[in-house]
């Protein structure tokens, strides 16, 4: 039980008078010492709340404002304070999420404000807290109302518009007509080939078999295009920067947009979160995007550190099977992705394409107490890693996370 400041002064006064009264056997002082206690014992009138309306409009994406409106009727007597609790990653932009009013009898309270979510996630905005203090500020009662308000905040997907008319030699080609080498056979005929163990009997071409005197089978084009494998670095060093803009949030935003781009074009997209050891099997289509996107909403920076090299090792069998183009989204100065990139590119006889999306923040991040010297060292480390990657033939794209993602993604996906 915490004694309020007003109660403290009343108790002190009463105690002072009582002690003097007892010391000098004074009836007046003892009688008067009860007076502050009578004020202290003044009751806090119980209050009742009725919610008329509560709604949330907008705020589906990070950085997009949403408006909350709550109307309630409160009955009671005293100072009423109503507060709609917001998660820590929300920023108020207009109005207040709390209100104070002196209540006599019944009164309507309206909380209306606008806020911006600064981080992806699924948030419950259900806590409406009421606090009623009596006029003397000696006692306080608290009530909590649960509202049916929820907000799902996603990263805005950066749309990449390719300029089709420009012709040239792409460094990392992944044209939209690329067909996967494995997968479910479709109806498009490709060729007739010799039977190998394991081919289904229904695919045997009896006429060709009779003609050549060897068992021949029809081969059909498989459904789906080539595969993409994304390695998202969720190690501790990614949590650098402000709560609004940090490497990890930027990496998730980039991963989300890349997934959207490829899954909507029927590429198979596999996903691995480095640090968590969390793997999503390759698949294509909107369902796969939704799965990856909803998983990205929940992911936070990992407690343990996992090297990119061991991440590639864990995904080895899928990389060998699907032969995908690998994309590493990381801070190269910390993760040193050279070995991992080379390993990923050598998962097939023909060298597989690998792209490293290297995140950088030129000013070191808001609120970080790094001096200029430290920033220079980090920058030189990053540049040296990048040059070694380029020498090894790995495609590298740098992204200053303070700048727009779409411009960078055009370079990743060219």
């Amino acid at each position, binding site marked *: 039980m915490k004694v309020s400041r007003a109660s*403290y002064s*009343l108790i002190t006064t009463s105690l002072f008078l*009582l002690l003097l009264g007892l010391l000098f056997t*004074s009836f*007046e002082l*003892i009688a*008067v010492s009860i007076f502050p206690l*009578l004020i202290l014992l003044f009751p806090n009138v119980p209050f009742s709340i009725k919610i008329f309306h509560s709604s949330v409009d907008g705020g589906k994406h990070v950085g997009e404002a949403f408006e909350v409106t709550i109307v309630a009727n409160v009955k009671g007597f005293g100072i009423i304070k109503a507060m709609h609790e917001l998660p820590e990653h929300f920023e108020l932009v207009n109005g*207040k999420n709390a209100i104070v009013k002196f209540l006599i009898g019944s009164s309507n309270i309206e909380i209306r404000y606008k806020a911006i979510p600064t981080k992806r996630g699924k948030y419950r905005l259900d806590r409406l807290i009421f606090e009623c203090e009596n006029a003397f*500020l000696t006692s306080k009662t608290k009530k909590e109302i649960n509202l049916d308000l929820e907000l799902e905040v996603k990263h805005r997907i950066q749309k990449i518009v390719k300029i089709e008319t420009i012709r040239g030699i792409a460094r990392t080609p992944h044209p939209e007509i690329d067909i996967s080498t494995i997968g479910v056979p479709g109806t498009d005929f490709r060729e007739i080939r010799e039977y190998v163990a394991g081919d289904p009997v229904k695919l045997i071409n009896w006429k060709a078999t009779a003609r050549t005197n060897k068992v021949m089978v029809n081969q059909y084009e498989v459904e789906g295009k080539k595969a993409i494998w994304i390695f998202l670095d969720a190690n501790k060093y990614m949590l650098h920067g402000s709560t609004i803009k940090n490497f990890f949030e930027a990496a998730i935003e980039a991963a989300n947009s890349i997934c959207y781009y490829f899954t909507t074009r029927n590429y198979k997209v596999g996903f691995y979160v480095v640090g968590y050891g969390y793997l999503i099997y390759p698949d294509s289509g909107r369902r796969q995007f939704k799965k990856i996107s909803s998983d990205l909403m929940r992911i936070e920076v990992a407690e343990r550190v996992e090297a990119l090299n061991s991440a590639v090792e864990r995904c080895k069998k899928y990389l060998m099977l699907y032969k995908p183009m690998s994309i590493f989204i990381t801070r190269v100065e910390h993760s040193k992705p050279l070995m991992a990139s080379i390993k990923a590119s050598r998962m097939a006889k023909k060298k597989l394409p690998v792209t490293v999306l290297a995140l950088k923040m030129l000013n070191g991040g808001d609120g970080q107490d790094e001096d200029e010297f430290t920033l220079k060292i980090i920058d030189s480390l990053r540049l040296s890693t990048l040059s070694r990657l380029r020498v090894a033939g790995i495609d590298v794209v740098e992204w200053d996370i303070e700048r727009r993602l779409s411009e960078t993604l055009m370079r990743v996906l060219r």
Partner: protein
Amino acid sequence: MKYKILGMVLAVILAEIAAFLTLQTYLTSPFAILIQYPIYYLIFIIPIVLMVMGRNPYGLSFFAILISFSFGRVLANSEVFYSFLDALYFFKFYDLSDYLYSMFSPYKTQDINHFLTLTWLFVVSQLLWNACLKAESLDEDGFEARDTLIFQIVAISLISFAIYVVYPHILELVKTTHQIPMLFAGLIGVVLFLISAYLLIKQ
């Protein structure tokens, strides 16, 4: 800052009223001959000095000063004080003992009104001061606290005044209808003391 200044102004007004009432009582008390004019006018200056210093003008220390100025009446009704005079008499200070007795004995009337008024003014001042500090913190948090404070000041003044008016009558009623034995009153005092001490330790 505006609400804190309002709190100080209200506290100064209440402190000056209390000081005026104390002076009236003091001039008719046995102490009047001990401390002469103009020393006792200091009690009017203290609240203003405290306000200039940015402190609560009607704090517990100033309340204690006002009580000490009114202490002649307490001593006049105090058994402990008369025991002390008896002790002086026993140790052969006959003149001093007689002089003090003749000085205090004419004021032997039990009247709580003066102390009750002082306490009421002090308690109201404390409550208003706290209300103003609360309004100040609400204002700093960006809330519109003006209307709340106005209602609060009115509520504090009216409710505490109602208790102030009713309390002596209740006390009188209790005294006349129920003769509370001194032992029982002492027990209540000790219990109140223990509860208060416990609450203060919690703070």
